[in-house]
């Protein structure tokens, strides 16, 4: 795998400067195990060295934030003793190399992040992006990823209740697989990733450690793809959902019985992270014995043990007098356990293997002294020309355009995907896949949680700041239409090569846009993930920030609006600012194979007003639907298909995707709608979808919509 000419630290992905930092910290040459740990902990994926400077821009505080960014998941207070944990993660590069396992282990990882906070994971979302389905390779990746998410999520027993699908050429060599997880817990079960006081024992639970993913964090996620990418195949980990299920139940029992002081999951950088981070956070030292680690392969070296990314493992920190109880819980759930370390009052991470001391480093240095880059940024030279090439909606054949949109696999029915996911388990899913936001009730209370997830690479390519801000507003509105007030955001920032100043400019601009929108809406960012190096052969992906928005409905509407709630005779209203003819970044533009123009900017005040309005209407309106991809025409058709009845409307800009707009369907006179922002545009009835006189039969519309993905896969 490596040549003998290159110094070891470079083979591990470290720069000369980073190596020098290690020399400075230790005051000597690092031993192999130490170098291995620094190489994984200081990789881009683990240390966020290119992004930390900019992430500080996000607003992270609010009275209801219990745990903000920096721990394994963000936690918010729902009132009455309930807390929610939320986390989003990417597994982009592994999914290109092995789509099923890459996606599966992505699900596994994020479940553990939420579990680590003391929460039971209760729902998952997937945000997946591929090249166009006309190419066999993209079909293979798409099917593999969906199978992997289904295979792992279903078997581990956590419902996948929503997600997002986008197709664009830029993702062909760089599919994006993001996964988001929501957990629920009582406030007295909150656990942090701390090693606790001196004398605390570190116990490793779960799957035996093997050579899985060695070099994964530092090699796969921190480097771009090129011709030799398939050689990286051995680094992909294989998931075991059954093991994970047992691990989840065991940990929940440990939490319920108050048997642990701190918990850390083992993800990227495995044992290196699970020992150093908790110790660093607690300001203590820790003594670790690698011989105690239960392994499934013979003769693993200390560096290998420290870099292994074997799945389904957790580290718990336990008071000495609780050890037996903890080991008994592990036995009951048939998971392996090993006492691997002890906390002391120093500050060093000392690691022993084969009876020798193989590492002795300041525990906190692996996290706190990670390099911090302020990489150069430069507005792309090509952006002015791209933004000048505008696109408007003059001359469109409405019926034809609508049919083409409905047939598009990113717009048509997502049932091909979501019917492979168990989305009903736990009996909480009031609104599931296919609508604007998912709505999950909390049994025994009047509360419900709403979640929406949104991304749009093309919009952000045209203007990262406007695009990212619009995503936040769209997510907030998707949550608001279920009756929930947005309370927290997590973000997954998928970008190209950070050594490219244009990418860093896109990154900074996206963060700025999201931050502005979050501030306007009063919603804190409680966590996120950065995935850089999504680039193949010098071509970066579109800047693709993905937003995950959590909302709290208290109380949940007794009868939440549903797309299927339209009935013959009801009125149809468009609410929000008037749309413009600007189609920059829209689905219509995409169908024509173009990308250009300057997207309509969001209006932060109106965005906030619309969220309030949607919250109120959610308790009264039978149908409330956000207008987004494909514009009003598609939103209307989705309502008609779900309700099994046609409609007729007049509208100036049926395909505009301008932000902050809703469709409301309700019996005449039922609703009290704000005069300035509401326009009655038509009524429900008949068996055609009629827009400005152009008609598409319900049968045709439904056929195109329902089979969009099928046909894209077989065509």
């Amino acid at each position, binding site marked *: 795998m490596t040549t003998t000419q290159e110094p070891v630290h470079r083979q591990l992905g470290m720069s000369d400067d980073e190596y020098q930092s290690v020399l400075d910290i230790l005051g000597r040459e690092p031993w192999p195990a130490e170098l291995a740990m620094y190489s994984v902990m200081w990789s881009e994926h683990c240390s966020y060295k290119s992004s930390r400077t900019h992430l500080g821009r996000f607003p992270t505080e609010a009275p209801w934030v219990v745990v903000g960014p920096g721990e394994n998941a963000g936690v918010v207070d729902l009132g009455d003793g309930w807390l929610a944990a939320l986390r989003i993660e990417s597994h982009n590069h592994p999914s290109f190399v092995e789509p099923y396992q890459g996606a599966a282990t992505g699900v596994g990882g994020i479940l553990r992040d939420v579990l680590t906070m003391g929460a039971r994971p209760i729902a998952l979302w997937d945000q997946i992006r591929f090249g166009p389905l006309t190419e066999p390779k993209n079909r293979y990746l798409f099917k593999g990823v969906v199978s992997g998410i289904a295979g792992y999520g279903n*078997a581990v027993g956590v419902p996948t209740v929503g997600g997002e699908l986008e197709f664009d050429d830029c993702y062909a060599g760089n599919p994006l697989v993001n996964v988001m997880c929501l957990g629920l817990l009582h406030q007295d079960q909150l656990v942090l990733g701390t090693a606790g006081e001196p004398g605390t024992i570190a116990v490793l639970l779960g799957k035996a450690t093997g050579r899985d993913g060695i070099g994964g964090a530092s090699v796969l996620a921190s480097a771009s793809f090129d011709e030799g990418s398939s050689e990286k195949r051995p680094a992909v980990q294989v998931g075991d*959902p059954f093991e994970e299920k047992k691990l989840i139940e065991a940990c929940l029992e440990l939490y319920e019985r108050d048997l642990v002081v701190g918990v850390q999951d083992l993800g990227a950088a495995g044992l290196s992270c699970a020992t150093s981070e908790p110790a660093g956070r607690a300001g203590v030292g820790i003594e670790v014995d690698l011989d105690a680690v239960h392994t499934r392969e013979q003769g693993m070296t200390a560096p290998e043990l420290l870099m292994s990314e074997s799945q389904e493992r957790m580290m718990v920190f336990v008071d000495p007098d609780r050890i037996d109880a903890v080991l008994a819980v592990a036995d009951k759930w048939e998971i392996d356990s090993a006492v691997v370390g002890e906390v002391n009052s120093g500050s060093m991470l000392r690691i022993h293997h084969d009876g020798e001391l193989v590492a002795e480093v300041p525990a906190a240095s692996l996290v706190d002294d990670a390099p911090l880059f302020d990489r150069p940024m430069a507005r792309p030279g090509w952006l002015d020309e791209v933004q000048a090439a505008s696109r408007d909606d003059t001359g469109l054949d409405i019926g034809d355009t609508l049919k083409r949109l409905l047939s598009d696999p990113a717009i048509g029915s997502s049932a091909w995907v979501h019917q492979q996911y168990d989305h009903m388990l736990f009996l909480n899913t009031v609104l599931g896949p296919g609508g604007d936001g998912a709505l999950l009730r909390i049994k025994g209370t009047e509360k419900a949680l709403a979640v929406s997830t949104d991304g749009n690479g093309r919009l952000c390519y045209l203007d990262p700041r406007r695009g990212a801000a619009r995503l936040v507003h769209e997510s907030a509105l998707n949550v608001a239409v279920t009756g929930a007030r947005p309370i927290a955001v997590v973000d997954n920032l998928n970008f190209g090569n950070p050594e490219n100043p244009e990418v860093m400019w896109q990154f900074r601009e996206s963060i700025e846009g999201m931050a502005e929108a979050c501030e306007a809406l009063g919603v804190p960012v409680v966590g996120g993930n950065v995935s850089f190096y999504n680039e193949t052969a010098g071509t970066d992906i579109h800047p693709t920030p993905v937003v995950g928005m959590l909302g709290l409905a208290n109380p949940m509407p007794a009868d939440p609006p549903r797309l299927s709630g339209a009935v013959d005779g009801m009125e149809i209203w468009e609410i929000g600012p008037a749309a413009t003819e600007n189609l920059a970044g829209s689905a219509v533009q995409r169908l024509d194979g173009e990308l250009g123009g300057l997207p309509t900017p969001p209006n932060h005040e109106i965005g906030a007003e619309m969220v309030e309005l949607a919250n109120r209407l959610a308790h009264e309106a039978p149908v409330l639907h956000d207008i987004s991809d494909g514009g009003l025409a598609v939103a209307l058709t989705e309502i008609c298909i779900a309700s099994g009845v046609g409609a007729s409307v007049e509208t100036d800009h049926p395909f505009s995707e301008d932000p902050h707009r809703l469709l409301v369907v309700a019996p005449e006179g039922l609703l009290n709608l704000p005069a300035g922002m509401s326009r009655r545009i038509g009524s429900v009835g008949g068996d055609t979808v009629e827009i400005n006189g152009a008609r598409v039969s319900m049968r045709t519309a439904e056929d195109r919509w329902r089979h969009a993905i099928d046909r894209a896969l077989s065509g």
Partner: protein
Amino acid sequence: MRAAVIVFPGVNCEHDVVHAIRALGGDAELVWHRDTDLSGFDGVILPGGFAHGDALRTGAIARLSPAMVDVARLAAEGTPVLGICNGWQMLCEAGLLPGAHIANRDLSFICRFVEVEVVDTGSILTRAAEPGQRLRIPLNSYEGNWVDPSRTGRVVLRYVEDPNGSHDRAAAVANEAGNVVGVMPHPERATEELLGSTDGQILLEGFLHSLVPA
């Protein structure tokens, strides 16, 4: 009158089953698969999920659990035993119901509502329903495809439209006495209007009415 809901490592529907039974006024308790004594219970439910990660074959290892010995005894004595989804697969592996399950014909996991028809009310699952009654219940499985080389299975619920290749479009099968039933769709997921359908209630009520104090 209490029902035991047996928990094997890897099942995940046990809490939903208990919730649904209790909502109907019944009494249900979780029982760990290593418990060997079910004598205090009047009925047994084997819930859905992925017991033992479906290792070897779905349900193959679960049937070796200590609790299954008592389940077999209770079944022979005429006690109501209901297997839902993975639970039905376990009953087949244990020889308490004929046939076996293989992958869905289209090799896709299927999670969606299906329509089933009551074709035989002579079972603990269907006794409260009317013959010919149609019910809308969620299906959620990969190996929902029932095969029956012996041709001795008694179909009590049939899919109106074949979703997975199941022999005779069987959605639920009973033993001769009617006290042991396996059903592939999940009645416990159809007991609340808020969640999409209450058609599962009549099936679970049939089970509850069958519970006679031990």
